[in-house]
């Protein structure tokens, strides 16, 4: 699924990647897909954990080299 927007969080350390995702999600429409690129290994833990608590769906989580790519579908506000 093509992302609605991509956040380049490369070079930043947690909690910045999840913070940028949270900020983008606040203004996104239901069904939007936000892609996050990060290279802090903790992003692979933090982002799914936050999505679980916020009710958003993790569509993809993959690592290629040092780059962790996460795609999140924005759910209705809970």
């Amino acid at each position: 699924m093509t992302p609605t927007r991509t956040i380049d969080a490369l070079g930043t350390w947690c909690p910045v990647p999840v913070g940028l995702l949270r900020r983008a999600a606040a203004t996104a429409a239901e069904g939007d897909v936000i892609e996050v690129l990060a290279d802090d290994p903790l992003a692979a833990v933090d982002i799914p954990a936050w999505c679980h608590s916020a009710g958003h769906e993790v569509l993809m989580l993959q690592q290629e080299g040092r780059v962790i790519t996460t795609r999140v579908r924005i759910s209705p506000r809970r």
Partner: protein
Amino acid sequence: MTAYLDHASGWPPSDAVRDAMARWIGVATSPMALHDHARGPAELVESAHSALADLTGWANDTVVLTSGATEARNLAMKGSIAGRGLSTPVIALDPLAHASAIAAARSLTRDGGQVRMADVDEVGDVMPAAIAAAAEGADLVVITHGQAEVGCVRDAAALIAAVRTAAPHAVVVLDAEETAGLLPIPDGLGADLVVMGGRSMGGPAWAGALCVRPGTLLHPLIEGGLEEYGKRGGAHDLPALAGITAAAHEACAAMPARADAMRAMAGRITDGLLGVPQVVLNGPGPHERLPGHVQVSARGVEGEALALAMAARGVAVSPGSACTFGAGKSSPVLEAMGADDDIARGAVLITIGPGTTDAELDAATRAFEESVAALRAMAPGAP
């Protein structure tokens, strides 16, 4: 001081810029705070993003606010190389690039890689074939739009198009420190990263921005929190942001009339300066250079001595090469253009702003003529 013709050092602020900056002095609330006091600062930061994004036509979230063009340039070069994880990059630029771009290129290749310099011609221009030759297979290419010292404005769109063919994988940086707000840079003229500074817009030089084309990978240079989308940590300088925002609005509204007026004044003073014997204009003619920019050399005269002699007569100008000022060296820029030592040592830079008056131009012409005559009278063998 009877004439201020050193806008290369800084523009006297317009009333709008001064008022905007004054309003924010003493406001201590972070725009990141959650309470109501943060609303104004947060709106100011967003308006700065918007005003600077308007210069490229890109979205507001492409703008990373910085402490000026030098930081933006370092962020562009070091951040994009780090973003791709390159340890031995090949970097192409030209020898007339800003000193901080050349220093950053050397720093990035300290442990390997290569810095390649494109050939420049006798007026400081770079041809597409020259940048293509230097850029072949490069990882990073820096295109300087307006050259600060000799004023040459390059055809950046053509140069970037040539780079895209020669180095399809290169990240291209457009250094628009001298042109943003004065000359149009729609779509960043095709670049991936655009360096801007407040000065060329009439704002504070200690505010600037890096505009990042979506998809360009960039590591922060200053790490911190969520400020500037994670690409530039640290507190915002609210008065400086207010100044650059007001200046960008004024610059957008005044373009191109402001540039035309500055070119006309530069043409007028150039005619007066060239009336002094053995004085030459460095760089291109008045219509192919940065608006308001004049650099001349007087044979037999040191540029620093000439600038000081003019200052003693109430006229503020710069020695020809700001970056080697005080070092007692010839201008490396003029040397790279093939100028002889007399020309390279004898340059002064006169930079005009939109508020410059005819009286200032006349005073500067008189001071130049008197100063050259006085210095030559003291120098054995001078013309």
